[in-house]
């Protein structure tokens, strides 16, 4: 709001809008096939599965906002590790749901601190530090449970697949996190610090920002978000699997960039993350529904992503 003039057309200049437009088009195109039948079901499914992508995407966004070279490639391994440990601790016992959550979050905290320690103490480039560390987390997950799938406690599974006021519970979790993230980025001092650090770390430090604390918090938060997503996903799909996070590596980056994230801040990107998360689900559903094979599906997905970024950028650049 603050960087735009009060022109109503200025809304078009918001890059996040285009992810929503694309999601809506994919939604409409899918329903075109059934002449409107199944709209509720599809929206419900999109919200359920979009929630996981949105949660990890918001975490990834915080890190990507830190500027070039910052990205967390350990998200899938973090999801797997925290879910595996949490489910193991819970052992399908209904009384243990919160204990499981605590274990998952503690795992996330540990992972985040470990990642940042590699980046800060050993000065490794984040891309490689998180990539290398993720291999270690993966081994830990294998070692801890050898890939055995333990069922989540009954109540927890019901919560994860249940709904409240017509929306999936996981989507509520994703929405609450989105609001919190939005407030932090748009309204809080810490959010300003994050955005400033991403533009020019040296200048930010000289402006009095505690940049290392900001970086640490970003890397810990992304791990916490990933851990939470892993915990929910395992509860949602009936247990933790070793490969459960695999598709969320590319997904987390994709929703951030499609969501119109630029490190500029100011135009909040959080709504874009959700739009992109829904889009990523709906576009696959649409192409599957039209019977597109894997090849066509990939080509069209890529083409649509590029179309979104072009649409978003031509609107952005004013004369």
């Amino acid at each position, binding site marked *: 709001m603050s960087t735009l003039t009060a022109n109503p057309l200025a809304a078009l200049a918001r890059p996040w809008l285009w992810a929503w437009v694309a999601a809506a088009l994919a939604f409409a195109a899918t329903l075109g096939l059934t002449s409107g039948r199944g709209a509720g079901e599809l929206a419900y499914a999109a919200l359920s599965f979009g929630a996981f992508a949105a949660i990890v995407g918001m975490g990834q966004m915080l890190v990507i906002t830190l500027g070039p070279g910052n990205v967390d490639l350990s998200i899938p391994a973090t999801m797997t590790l925290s879910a595996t440990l949490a489910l193991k601790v819970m052992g399908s016992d209904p009384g243990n749901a919160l204990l499981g959550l605590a274990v998952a979050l503690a795992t996330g905290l540990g992972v985040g601190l470990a990642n940042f320690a590699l980046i800060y103490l050993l000065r490794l480039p984040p891309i490689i530090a998180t990539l290398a560390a993720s291999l270690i987390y993966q*081994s830990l997950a294998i*070692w801890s449970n050898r890939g055995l799938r333990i069922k989540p406690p009954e109540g927890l599974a019901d919560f994860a697949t249940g709904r409240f006021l017509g929306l999936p519970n996981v989507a509520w979790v994703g929405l609450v996190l989105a609001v919190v993230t939005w407030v932090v980025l748009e309204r809080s001092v810490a959010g300003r610090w994050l955005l400033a650090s991403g533009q020019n770390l040296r200048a930010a430090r000289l402006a009095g920002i505690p940049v290392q604390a900001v970086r640490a918090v970003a890397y810990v938060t992304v791990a916490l978000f990933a851990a939470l997503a892993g915990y929910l996903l395992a509860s949602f799909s009936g247990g933790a699997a070793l490969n459960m996070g695999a598709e969320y590596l590319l997904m987390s*980056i994709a929703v951030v960039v499609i969501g119109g994230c630029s490190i500029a801040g100011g135009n909040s990107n959080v709504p874009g993350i959700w739009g992109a998360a829904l889009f990523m689900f709906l576009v696959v559903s649409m192409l599957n529904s039209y019977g597109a094979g894997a090849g066509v599906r990939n080509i069209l*997905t890529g083409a*649509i992503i590029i179309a979104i970024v072009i649409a978003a950028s031509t609107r952005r650049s004013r004369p």
Partner: protein
Amino acid sequence: MQPRAMSYFGLNLLFNLAVPIALATIAQMCVIMVNDIDLSIGAFVSLVACVTATFLNDTPMLGVLILLALILSYAVMGAVIHALDLPAIVVTLGMSFVWGGLALFILPTPGGAAPGWIRTLMTVKPPVAPMAVVAAVLIAAVTHVMFIRSGLGTVLRGVGGNMRSVQRAGWNVLYLKALAYGLAGLFGVLAGMALVGLTTSADANIALRYTLLSIAGVILGGGEFIGGKVSPVGAVIGALTLTLAASFLSFMRLSPDWQIGAQGAILILVLTARLLFARKGAAA
């Protein structure tokens, strides 16, 4: 270490798969050199591998044309990114889906065969040093001259350092960016061809890993994400190091649970060692 590894034969085995990785790393370097990042190089090399194992083998003329078209499309991608001022990370992410989809079209199931001449080239046994070592040295030398010594290479690095000043000096940056991406496409094509020469056939997922590997290689070799600071020799050494790190691991017998993690640990150790050296070098 294994005694066999130090032989002519051993060195070749140890390093020959590093050759396509080194080429892909150079491709990634071309893009990082102009302050962008390429998330599609892995999918692109896979696509090239598929084309090489099918069209280039069956109908060489058509194959060559397709490969040229692929290089051209890389150059166009660079031009579009610059002209429309798009974030390269998104465009290349999108393109990675496109390349992957095309590869699935060409080879829905693994197959194809390496053209004989590539196979011969990749398995030739030069005197003194094995092919893998000769190739690595050759790639490093040629790209060093291309990017560091030559005038045009200097200007290309200048684009990464300060695009505006290059523009002000009268260069057409659109053309330079297209050139950088076109070179990335060229090295991507070489990587795909070299890979098929070694594996003898291709599949649509064959080189997906190269995206991260090539980024890691560039950084390991002393490159930086922004500012046009790259080193082709470093990139080749980075690619060799990454290959070697994985090999080193299978020489130690670890429990299968920890094999994957140990590769991560080795990566961290190698990088830390490199940084320590770099810091010592800077202090001296």
